[in-house]
């Protein structure tokens, strides 16, 4: 499997990484400006995983993804429109979930995003179900579940990986090991050095990969996806990465050892890919700046658009709870 991707794919990945980065930087500002409320979890620094993952997913074939509250990058990389996401972040009716979900609950079936799950570990069992549908129907579709390094500690994670292994489901379990679960370093709460070490308990293959290098992550995921499609069951992929910002809006990340952030920033996923493209003559410094500026402008435009979008109507509050179903559609105030 070649690790050097074509120029077009590289360009797309780079563009998407810039889009994610600019979007999240803007989101943080919007939080400080009180335009976005609640909480949010930024993936700045982790963008390579998102764009590599998205290259493997084909929603038209039925591929699906579940991820966590740290899902803006995955959603955008999969192709959720920036409009849809920004409006959702602000609780506007034009958001992907009509403003009802918010930052932690993005979903877009059209791009294969079943949902971003806010309860740790809750997405993996659901990914299994999507993989089960693919297995039953023989569609060749896969389902990817993305989670953090703190997540393997929870029971739902274990049960899901286990069931996928027993049933040889076409699933891929993708860990973004960003070194921390909230404010606690990985090694304080895990008994094994690597998340990948857990795979032995399920008799499934695992791979540790440089999560800052989209071109390293991509072939690993592609192989895992191929294995899944071939009926050989799930793979556990551990991408080593780092979040530049705190866990969530309210976290200044004072727990970082000195210099840690700076060391990781030297291996910035955008710079790595951009640098390689420049070395390969696929991108000039000026083009890179223009691309960045273009994304920045796009984010700016969409932000303003979203700010002017309407709120959902108040009657929306109790809508969408019940699926219409035969006679008893609209059980409404129900119980």
């Amino acid at each position, binding site marked *: 499997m070649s690790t050097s991707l074509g120029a077009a794919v590289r360009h797309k990945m780079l563009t998407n990484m810039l889009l994610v980065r600019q979007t999240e930087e803007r989101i943080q500002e919007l939080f400080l400006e009180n335009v976005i409320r609640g909480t949010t979890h930024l993936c700045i620094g982790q963008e390579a995983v998102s764009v590599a993952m998205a290259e493997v997913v084909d929603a038209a074939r*039925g591929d*699906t993804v*579940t991820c966590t509250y740290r899902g803006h990058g995955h959603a955008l990389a999969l192709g959720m429109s920036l409009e849809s996401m920004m409006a959702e972040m602000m609780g506007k009716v034009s*958001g*992907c*979930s*009509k*403003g*009802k*979900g918010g930052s932690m*609950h993005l*979903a*877009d*079936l059209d791009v294969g995003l*079943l*949902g971003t*799950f806010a*309860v740790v570990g*809750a997405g*993996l*069992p*659901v*990914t*299994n*179900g*999507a*993989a*089960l*549908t*693919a297995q*039953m*129907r023989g569609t060749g579709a896969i*389902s990817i579940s993305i989670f953090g390094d703190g997540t393997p500690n929870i*029971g*739902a994670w274990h*049960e*899901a990986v*286990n*069931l996928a292994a*027993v*049933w040889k489901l076409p699933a891929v379990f993708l860990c973004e090991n960003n070194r921390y679960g909230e404010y606690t370093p990985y090694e304080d709460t895990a008994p094994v050095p690597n998340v990948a070490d857990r795979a032995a308990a399920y008799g499934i293959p695992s791979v540790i990969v440089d999560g800052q290098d989209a071109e390293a992550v991509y072939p690993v995921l592609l192989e895992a996806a191929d294995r899944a499609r071939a009926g050989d069951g799930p793979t556990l992929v551990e991408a080593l990465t780092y979040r530049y910002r705190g866990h969530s809006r309210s976290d200044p990340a004072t727990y970082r050892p000195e210099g840690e952030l700076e060391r990781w920033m030297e291996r910035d996923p955008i710079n790595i890919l951009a640098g390689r493209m420049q070395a390969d003559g696929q991108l000039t410094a000026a083009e890179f700046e223009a691309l960045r500026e273009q994304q920045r402008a796009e984010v700016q435009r969409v932000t303003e658009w979203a700010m002017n979008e309407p709120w959902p109507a108040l009657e929306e509050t109790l*809508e*969408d*709870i*019940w*699926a*219409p*179903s*035969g*006679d*008893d559609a609209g*059980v409404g105030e*129900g*119980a």
Partner: protein
Amino acid sequence: MAVMTCRDAVVRALDEEMARDEDVIFFGEDVGKAGGVFKVTPGLYEKYGGRRVRDTPISENAIVGAGVGAAVTGMRPVIELMFADFAAVTLDQIVNQAAKLRYMSGGQIQVPLTIRMAQGSAGGFGSQHSQCCESWFMHAPGLKVCVPGTPADILGLLKSAVRDDNPVIFLEHKGQYAERGEVPDHADHLVPMGEARVVREGGDVTIVAVQRMVGVALKAADTLAEQGVECEVIDPRTLVPLDMETIARSVEKTGHLVTVEEAVRAGGWGAEVVSQITENNIWSLEGPVVRVTLGAGIIPFSQPLEEHLLPGPEDVVAAVQRSLEA
């Protein structure tokens, strides 16, 4: 009318729905090759094969999650959690995920999932295998909750549940599996959700009960009839949606209300029925409303204690008398 057991009704419903729609799949612990620990699902594995009828590891989170994910992507899974008490190990997947995914996605998603479990006391199963757990689910909008208590209602509601586009909690009473009853012969007996059944008519007091407590209420009604008190016994059959119309109409007529639950008092459906009546029909009440429940009790193993804790006809008679007293 054929006569069959509640047990037979479950397997017939599943069989009919699996035959009708190949997106219906069924999985859970020991439900396949072994036909289920309550022997409720024999023959399905043999008929539909190990792909559509699957034995799972003991992993309730994984079971429910797989049901949710399969439902979201187009299947109509039926899953079994065996004893309803075990739903507690996976409540998150049920009340935070299955129930809310549709809402949180702004209506993009639907979760046509049926979650079967066996609840209630069956004599000596102890504190962790005898509970009625409907309260956990009633409190989570997005879930429908079925509590059928006859073979016909099990058959008709389970088929409706499978066809429903919402996640449905389907609670069978394990103490009733061997009970027999008539079931319509025609091929496709459906019972709609949200329609109570008036099991016995009467003008003096309204008794609302489900599952095994319907029988208890009927026994009490017999005793009371001898004393000249005519009870109207209503079985809501589903708790979400809840047919308050039928109940309210009855209370308007009788002026008296007693609820009979095989569950802990606080948080039960009885309180919901009572509260809705007191909010919307208070002037029709001619006496205190009385709930017969387990109180704040835990189900003991020892036979006399268990029987003492469980509502019996004499408890219902006493409750009715109290409600008529004032």
